[in-house]
């Protein structure tokens, strides 16, 4: 029972205990305790993996934890912890009549199932098990998105379920084709292990590999939110409760992109090594331009942030598509900063919506006058997402522009166009909220505010610290590791 087993244990145990606890606040505190335990364990795991330099295996090589995976695990478990604390006060403030009784009863179980699924994806070496983990996470998050009793929430959950169901079905098709390709090399049982596939990939016939990667790319791409496949994302984020949409945009998108990266590195030393980068670049640029343009026509707060998530995920996929060490560094920094600031933005959106009762941008006015603290948090997180100096996103965007600039000049112009449009759109939409005069929306006070503010504040502090003192020592070992794996 090495460290990986230890880290999975609290999630599995909580799945057994949580369903039978009826008292909601108790269930909340238990799930937060479990998440904190998991976070502490992930710190130990990270410490061990960083020092030992060798990836750790578990359960006859089905679980693998290398430097990149441990970075994602650290990020996911930290955000999972803070979201679980935030969820306590958020659900406490929610008006119980709006919530669907069954989903509310199993909220924390679904939450832990979701986190376990995420962890499963990040830790899995066995691509079949990776699919099972993603399917588990999707189903759990679908249930959570349908928390509210409104018909829009139901519709959003249903669309999310069907679209991601079909998407993941395609991913399973890709996994099977890959498995068949591996079995032609006589790998048999071990054909599903990623490490085996990396070494065997040059021998597998190129056409088969290409078709399987396309299925996997489209399947997991729907989860990442590449543009033609992104339609479930704005509805799920806009209608779901704030902690769930924070999880969705903070963790799920990253985990899905992590899965695609696994398969990209698998193809790295075959004849097809350019295919993944080309796909990532094409969908990245389409995504940036489409999201930047559609940001102009958003009329709801959380839907605006959903489209901004699509834009940032496309930026990250451009960075991974470029592939140079500088681009990898920019991508990792951008991914972590984006998750932290986007979750902080969703937390403050949750506070604002609970107090103002509405999320249409035209009705939210004079926030700093009526709710100074959550308005300040929303302000800082918006300007962090816009990429203005103190935030880490400012640096990662600069590095991204430099990487694209070094690749070729045409990309940089497209990238600058996308960045400029997105900046103008978000600024245009968010600007009237803070210091405008006419506020004809009645503001209700928050009942339980112990956990309402500190999670968002903690995230923003980390983002600003990373903005001023760029975390080299944390990210460059990972970049060297990836470069090692690739060459």
């Amino acid at each position, binding site marked *: 029972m090495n460290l990986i087993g230890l880290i999975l244990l609290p999630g599995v145990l909580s799945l057994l205990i949580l369903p039978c606890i009826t008292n909601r606040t108790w269930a909340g505190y238990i799930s937060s305790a479990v998440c904190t335990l998991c976070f502490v364990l992930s710190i130990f795991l990270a410490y061990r993996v960083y020092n030992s330099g060798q990836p750790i295996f578990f359960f006859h090589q089905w679980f693998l934890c290398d430097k990149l995976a441990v970075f994602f695990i650290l990020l996911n478990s930290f955000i999972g912890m803070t979201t679980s604390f935030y969820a306590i006060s958020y659900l406490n403030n929610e008006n119980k009549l709006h919530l669907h009784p069954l989903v509310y009863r199993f909220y924390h179980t679904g939450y832990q199932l979701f986190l376990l699924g995420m962890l499963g994806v990040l830790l899995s070496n*066995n691509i079949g098990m990776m699919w099972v983990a993603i399917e588990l996470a999707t189903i759990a998050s679908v249930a959570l998105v349908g928390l509210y009793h409104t018909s829009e929430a*139901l519709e959003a959950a249903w669309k999310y379920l069907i679209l991601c169901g079909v998407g993941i079905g395609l991913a399973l*098709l890709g996994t099977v084709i890959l498995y068949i390709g591996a079995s*032609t090399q006589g790998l048999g049982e071990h054909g599903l292990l990623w490490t085996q596939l990396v070494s065997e990939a040059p021998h597998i016939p190129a056409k088969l590999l290409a078709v399987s990667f396309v299925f996997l790319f489209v399947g997991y791409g729907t989860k990442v939110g590449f543009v033609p496949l992104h339609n479930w994302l704005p509805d799920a984020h806009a209608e779901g409760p704030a902690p769930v949409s924070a999880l969705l945009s903070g963790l799920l998108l990253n985990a899905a992109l992590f899965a695609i990266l696994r398969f990209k590195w698998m193809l790295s030393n075959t004849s097809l090594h350019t295919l993944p980068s080309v796909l990532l670049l094409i969908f990245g640029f389409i995504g940036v331009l489409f999201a930047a343009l559609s940001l102009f026509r958003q009329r709801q707060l959380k839907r605006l942030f959903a489209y901004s998530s699509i834009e940032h995920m496309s930026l990250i996929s451009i960075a991974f598509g470029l592939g140079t060490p500088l681009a990898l560094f920019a991508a990792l920094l951008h991914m972590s900063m984006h998750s932290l600031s986007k979750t902080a933005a969703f937390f403050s959106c949750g506070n604002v919506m609970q107090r103002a009762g509405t999320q249409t941008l035209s009705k939210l006015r004079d926030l700093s006058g009526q709710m100074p603290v959550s308005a300040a948090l929303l302000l800082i997180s918006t300007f962090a997402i816009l990429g203005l100096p103190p935030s880490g996103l400012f640096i990662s965007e600069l590095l991204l522009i430099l990487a694209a600039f070094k690749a070729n000049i045409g990309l940089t112009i497209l990238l600058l166009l996308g960045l400029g449009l997105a900046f103008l759109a978000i600024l245009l939409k968010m600007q009237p909220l803070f210091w405008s005069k006419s506020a004809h929306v009645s503001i209700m006070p928050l009942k339980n505010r112990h956990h309402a503010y500190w999670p968002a504040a903690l995230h923003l502090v980390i983002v600003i610290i990373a903005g001023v003192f760029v975390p080299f020592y944390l990210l460059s070992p990972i970049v060297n590791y990836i470069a090692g794996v690739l060459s």
Partner: protein
Amino acid sequence: MINDWLLFLISIMLLCGVLMVVGTHITSVLKLLVAQNTLLAVYLLTKAIYVPNAALFVSVAITVIVKVIILPLLLWKLARFLHLSGRVEPIVNKPTLLLLTTALVFFALILSRNMLTFLPHTSAAGFSLALANAFVAMLLVIVRRKAVTQVIGLLVLENSIFILAAALSTGFPWLIELGMSFDVLVGFMIFTLFLMRIQREYGSLQIHNFEKLKERV
């Protein structure tokens, strides 16, 4: 001889899929789904008998329990609870539907022909038929007006992928098989939960009341 029998089984499954797409009554679609599950179980059984291997027997057991016994039971209770009846009008009329299915099957055949150049022709045929089944399942999810048929489409997609895996290789290790079928089961539970909510919310399972989340400037 055995390969011809296996090939025959897969083609029957493809037939069930196509019938589901063009099927009119919801109950007939449900019956065809159950038929496809049993065909899958029979396929795995024949494979297990002729190529004796412990993992295959375990996966046959799992498929029989989950797909042939539990799922039809749940489907039947669901149908009675939602008192499903009446016609299922697809979005596009029947002739174009048939044209679409033939185009999809044709594409699946070309795709698998190009992809599996290194395999002998016979085993590749099974793969291409299973792939065609998967594409037809996707069409089933897209085309139908009722929410239930979308669920059924997803289940048919899962079936076709299982048959695909079984057709060419010895199938997944049993633990993965167990995980997958567990996911399908839990997915189905969520589906039933939502279908009941839709039924209570709208009183009917029509898709057209799912168009509120449109974006206007």
